């Protein structure tokens, strides 16, 4: 699966995207955040306030309970501030 990051999430993690193989225990976005957070300080900093994060599964907005076992691209980003 492809993970894509934007804004301060991207800056904390240090990549704008990465390919990952999720273990079978990771079913939802919330599971994925927990699994990523142990990978290093950058992830922990990026996900420090998970209630503020937004997610898109295959470019559709989703919440943390969304199942991602069949998804191709998960985007993780802060609240949007365009316009």
């Amino acid at each position, binding site marked *: 699966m492809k993970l894509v990051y934007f804004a301060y999430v991207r800056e904390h993690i240090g990549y704008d995207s990465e390919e990952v193989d999720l273990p079978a225990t990771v079913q939802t976005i919330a599971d994925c955040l927990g699994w990523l957070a142990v990978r290093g300080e950058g992830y922990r900093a990026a996900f420090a306030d998970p209630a503020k994060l937004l997610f898109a599964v295959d470019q559709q907005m989703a919440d943390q309970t969304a199942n991602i076992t069949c998804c191709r691209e998960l*985007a993780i980003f802060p609240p949007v*501030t365009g*316009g």
Partner: protein
Amino acid sequence: MLPGTGDFSPGDGRMIRIHLPQKALDLAGEMAAINALGSGAVASFTGTARADDHAGQTVTAIELEHYPAMTSAALQALAETAMQRWPLAACCIIHRTGIIPVGDAIVLVAAASSHRVAALESCSFLIDRLKTDAPFWKKEYYDNGSARWVEAKAADTTRAQDWNIRA
């Protein structure tokens, strides 16, 4: 031009125009094009990068990051929602991305209709919902070399949600 941007027609003469340029917006050209439709009423909103102060520093430029694979689809969905809700002849959303110097326009939304109220309301709807529904992130650069991601405002979320309950 990114895939998914351009001019679209729902097939009935109405027009949706979505662009994500990385250079200065042609405001006069865009307004002339939408006025040329002869719809009777055109409402527009332009947002410009301001030389705001923040913690004693002055903004010199802003950067607009976005999610290319999602942005144009999100803006097109927004325009289509407006077209379904109001009798519009055209809907135009032009959003600049990348580095934007202070004084330059960031975004232009415009709506054309034969009805004044439809043009005015849908224009407000488009910019209100763009602020909360489209994947853009704004970073401010200051005159001392520092930078800061702009935080989302609760008032913007409230205003965007108010459209759910408006008559």
